[in-house]
């Protein structure tokens, strides 16, 4: 199984260790993990992102995971996903864990996944204290559940821009207050969705939901299975 983790900030940096620990321990099949991000870890990220060194997020994360989990093949791609490179980033059969901070990239990845015959996309996002995880599964050229743009016009017609289109000054200004606990919750729910999808793909489980909402302010979660 080829796993692509796109976005290694508040959500992606937290899901890497448990993801690698899980697949390292499972001993079922061959796994490779590719981490993709064009951004850099800087000291100001330390309040809610998990990293030990400053530098490109993909390279720093890959180095840490290779050291902690030498049995897993891990590759770094220190780039943002763009219209030009997405054909090389996401391929047939991939499982994509998407933890980016803009809807423009979600739309780009979703549209590309819809052109593939077999692919899984698990996307997480959050605001200050709430967020959601969306699942898109495509098998043998047909949608098992609708794409992440379905019922979500904010992703279908994003008002933000891909970070690759932003200058350094604009990138620095995109930060809004976030809470590490909200990021962690999104990461855990993405990993839980990953486990469910793996069981579904292997024929040992069902896809019981395709979107899950959470709200730390009320303590509630709610899962729904979308049908198109």
């Amino acid at each position, binding site marked *: 199984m080829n796993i692509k983790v796109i*976005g290694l*900030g*508040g*959500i*992606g940096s937290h899901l890497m260790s448990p993801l690698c620990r899980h697949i390292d321990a499972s001993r079922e099949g061959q796994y490779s993990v590719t981490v993709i991000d064009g951004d850099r870890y800087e000291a100001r990220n330390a309040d809610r992102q998990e990293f030990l060194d400053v530098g490109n997020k993909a390279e720093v994360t890959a180095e840490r995971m290779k050291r902690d989990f030498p049995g897993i093949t891990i590759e770094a791609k220190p780039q943002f996903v763009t219209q030009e490179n997405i054909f090389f980033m996401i391929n047939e059969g991939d499982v994509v864990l998407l*933890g*980016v*901070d*803009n*809807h423009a990239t*979600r739309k780009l990845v979703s549209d590309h996944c819809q052109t593939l015959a077999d692919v899984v996309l698990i*996307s*997480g*996002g*959050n*605001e200050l204290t*709430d*967020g*959601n995880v*969306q699942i898109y599964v495509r098998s043998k050229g047909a949608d098992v559940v609708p794409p*992440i743009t379905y*019922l*979500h*016009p*904010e*992703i279908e017609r994003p008002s*933000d821009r891909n970070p690759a289109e932003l200058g350094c000054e604009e990138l620095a200004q995109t930060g*809004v207050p*976030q809470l590490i606990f909200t*990021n962690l919750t*999104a990461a855990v729910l993405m990993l839980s969705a990953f486990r469910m999808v793996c069981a579904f793909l292997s024929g040992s489980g069902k896809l019981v939901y395709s979107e899950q*909402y*959470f*709200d730390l302010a*009320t303590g*509630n*979660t*709610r899962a*729904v299975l979308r*049908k198109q």
Partner: protein
Amino acid sequence: MAEELKGVSIQCGANSQVIDLSQGETLTVGDIRKRLGDVLNIAPTALAIVRVENGEDENVDDDRAVKNGDTVQFVKQSGTKG
């Protein structure tokens, strides 16, 4: 065994409320949007879906009347950040 819903279930994101219409009150999706907008953080532009009797979800406009037993879901926008 699932308990029968006594009222209209309103969902937005992770949160939900029940409004009982057994006193004969009539309510539309737009009324609910106004009444619970702040409580459930329903965006003015959030799509509304009603689960109809065969279990299918139906996109509805704000003038759609609801009745006890209906489930109305306002689709919360996906989280932007990560």
